[in-house]
């Protein structure tokens, strides 16, 4: 929201051309799971910077708290106990949140003009003032990230601190991370940094260490270094080959024109109602509320 409209590269449900004169650097957040100690400082920083406070919940038998993403929790740690090698336990801790896909399924699926935007630096942001709460972004997201608020029925998720990044700061979670497991910079630099980490992990016996930057969504602007790059599903079901749901393709391909026709008909019907019955009167009581 803090970025200028000049930097908006794509908008949901909009056919007009986005401004193309200006180019910004493509950014990325890199989360090195091999350095993450699951301290949840990133969750605390996210709450503080974005002025979010989830409910004080209860323990359901795991360390994960809050237990899931919500309109108040835009990032959560997910703890997985796995034995990749027989007898060798690993506790894989993944910071979950929006991946800021280059090809964002949420944006494609969104029917409300300008409710979801993508900036030229790669950040995918929700503009809640335009959100109609339909939940299509959830269907469109291959990572199951957006959540609809029960309070205002709008969708929320990580903004990659677009308001901080827009003024040259790193996201709040990056700033607070005590071990440097979360780093931020240009996407090219982050890929380079990840290569060094992967070399180190391979030397420590993780022969399948790899960068997670899945091609199915055009790459992401939040990437992971995984010790077991061949098995992303070990990390609390991180999808191995994420892609945009065919339903979204269907919506764009066939359904959307049909829907548009339907929408047109509805508008037409509304107009017909207006000219025949006049504008809807607002009750006096409602006005004074």
């Amino acid at each position, binding site marked *: 929201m803090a970025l200028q409209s000049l930097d908006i590269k794509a908008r949901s449900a909009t056919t007009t051309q986005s401004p193309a004169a200006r180019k910004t650097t493509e950014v990325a957040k890199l989360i090195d799971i*091999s*350095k*993450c*100690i*699951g*301290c*949840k*400082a990133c*969750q*605390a920083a996210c*709450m*503080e910077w974005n002025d979010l*406070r*989830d*409910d*004080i*919940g*209860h*323990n*359901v*038998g*795991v*360390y994960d*708290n*809050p237990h899931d993403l919500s309109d108040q929790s835009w990032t959560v740690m997910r703890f997985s*106990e796995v*034995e990749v090698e027989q007898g060798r*336990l*690993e*506790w*894989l*801790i993944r910071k979950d949140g929006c991946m800021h896909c280059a090809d964002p399924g949420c944006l494609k699926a969104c029917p409300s003009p300008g409710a979801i935007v993508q900036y030229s630096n790669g950040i995918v942001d929700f503009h809640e003032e335009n959100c109609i709460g339909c939940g299509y972004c959830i269907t469109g997201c291959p990572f199951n990230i957006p959540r609809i608020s029960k309070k205002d029925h709008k969708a929320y998720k990580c903004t990659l601190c677009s308001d901080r990044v827009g003024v040259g700061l790193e996201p709040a979670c990056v700033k607070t991370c*005590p*071990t*440097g*497991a979360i780093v931020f910079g240009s996407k090219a630099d982050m890929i380079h940094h990840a290569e060094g*980490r992967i070399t*180190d992990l391979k*030397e*420590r016996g993780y022969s399948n260490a790899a960068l997670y930057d899945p091609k199915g969504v055009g790459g992401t602007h939040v990437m992971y270094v995984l010790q077991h790059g061949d098995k992303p599903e070990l990390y609390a079901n991180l999808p191995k080959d994420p892609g945009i749901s065919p339903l979204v393709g269907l919506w764009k391909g066939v359904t959307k024109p049909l829907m548009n026709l339907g929408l047109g008909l509805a508008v037409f019907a509304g107009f017909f109602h207006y000219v025949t019955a006049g504008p809807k009167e607002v009750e006096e009581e409602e006005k004074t509320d």
Partner: protein
Amino acid sequence: MTNHWVDIKNADLIIIMGGNAAEAHPCGFKWVTEAKAHRGAKLVVVDPRFNRSAAVSDYYAPIRPGTDIAFLGGVINYLLSNNKIHEEYVKHYTNAPYLVREDFSFNDGLFSGYDAEKRKYNRDTWDYALGKDGYVEIDETLQNPRCVYQLMKQHYARYTPETVSRVCGTPKEAFLKVAEMIGETSRPDKVMTILYALGWTQHTTGSQNIRTMAMIQLLLGNIGRVGGGVNALRGHSNVQGITDMNLVSGVMPGYLRMAADEEQDFQGFLSKRALKPLRPNQMSYWQNFPKFWVSLAKTFYGKAATKENDFSYHWFPKYDKPYDVLQMFERMHNGQMNGFICQGFNPLAAVPCLQKVSAALSKLKYLVVIDPLSTETAEFWRDHGELNSVDASKIQTEVFRLPANCFAEETGSYTNSGRVLQWHWSAADGPGDAKGDVEIIAGIFTRMRDMYRKEGGAFPEPILNLTWPYSIPDQPSPEELAREFSGKALADVTDPKDPTKVLAKAGEQLASFAHLRDDGSTSSGNWLYCGSWSQAGNLMARRETSDPSGLGFYPNWGFSWPANRRVLYNRANCDVSGKPWDPSRKTIAWDGSKWTGFDVPDMRPDAAPEEDVGPFIMHPDGVGHLFALKGMADGPFPEHYEPFETPLGVNPMHPKNPLVTSNPVSRLFAYDKAQLGKADKFPYVATTYRLTEHYHYWTKNVRINSILQPSQFIEMNEELAKEKGIAHGDTVKVTSNRGYIRAVAVVTKRLRPLDIDGKKVHTIGIPIHWGFIGVAKKGFLANRLTPFVGDATAHTPEFKAFLVNIEKV
């Protein structure tokens, strides 16, 4: 820490044992990740639980709570049997070659001098064999059967890999793998560091847990080294500071040992502590004890402390026994103590056995609680249903609550784990009537002094003569106090070698404890902090980030005690000839005429290597102690004893000697002995710990922390859960012989059953952070379960190993 936080990045191998740095010290843990990322360092975690530190480790080995000495004794045996020691270091910088008295012995778990009735040792035989010249006899070949090396070898020969596995439950291969990785750092160009915390101290063998690792580090030649040392991670930003200032009841600021009741003679008191060298040419730095003590007394009593009145020695308290918290609450429980000023402390949660603490507090006439927050202790008298079931009408204790500022509302110095004093500035004023701790204590003092003035008293001199030079007596400023603890010249201080040279003029701040005098011409509230506020100003407030060493010493950031030295014993970073063992990690070196380099030498600057001055200058022999002499209450070599509540019932190292099932000299009061449980009713081992999301019992008052970890839980392994029909998220009741808690069960692979001597032992993990005050979901204080018994030397309570039962509710 012998070293400091940043120095962890210089290690080749990092062991975390008796602590959980990633969980409890996440910010400092960054230096572990630095070492891994930039030095290719390896991280090994040995712990009952696969914890957050283990999550990012290269190797993890499980261990039964309370068996660290068995594990580490096994490592010593491995190092000695496989010649994985740093031989030159061991020969020259430790007491390995020193001969021990003929009458020192060890038999079936007991050292010579044991008195079963008093549960105490007469430690006379735990000493060196002295020659006619008064110096210790030594055998540089290490072959004499009475030399420390041979005695140690014999002592630990029993700790075979099989025995370690049998006692600790650590699989033999896992133990050997860890021992092998440790052994590799015996090479002069490899250095290991050890990070520990309450996981070692909170045992009835706590001090010896740490000593065993110190012995290993000496054998490997890793003390005094960059990237090495023995490093205690303190739990609070200023725990090191309070320790330096006299946390332990038997010491005065700067670790000056207090006088005992029988020490009424001032000169006798001083000479007993001013230890004479036990080998030729040694510095035996405690010879300066009189200078430190007299300067401290001058800070207390100023002009009233004179040579004639033994510098006010007779106004200082003398102890008849240690007054640790266990002793304090025992006395309170016995009705021998009727008032308690409780400052920044929540004993209902933090002193073991809540039931006893609650009963003890109920016997007080008054309780003063000084704290920024409401605490369980302040509300011990209020009924909170099942969580704190008391009848307030039967408790007569009058409770005063004095709201204090929190840390961010105060200005002053912090001393961090790495001994670095850093000045900080208040960020905001405290709310409402809150006052700073100094102001509160000063107010109590000045009012007390007025009462003594008006009404007299049994022994008014120590109160009436106290120096109180602050411009606002009820409000001493942090700056005034800091200048006072650093110290100043009361008369001109001159150079002993050249009396015409004035080192400090009367009234000036002193630059160093080397300028302290025992004639009353100097004052310093803590000799270790001397120079932190010199004529150059407040050095604690320095924030310069230059680092000429490239090793993270930052000599002009804050002030590191002593003398701004960043690594203690740094003479041992060099070989005998004064060259660094590893030139890439140079601190100081002998340049032909003096010691010089990036750090402040821990050595007389002009002591040529040929003089053979040992690097451990605080010891009268100048060397590191593999044999502890009389320093420890429970023996000069650490020995494995079971926790006071043992799942085995016997000590597997000494199955036939019931005297040594548990530490034979840990103090156990009669009331608490009766409260101990046995394995027939309480078959599972319990251990308490902290979580990253919370800080002790404070952050349950904070919404964000409470969101991150909202409600009480315990951890247990899958096998036991299955056996008991307990699933993820079920509520369980955990019971010890002292009480119970109810909590949600986290069923995890990270705890596993251990095979101990053919018996399966399960461990229940109990995080401590919940209570009946705060915004987090209310819970039971874990302290309802814990036993009231502590370490033989330091009396730290055994929170880390006791017995419980568990059932689904």
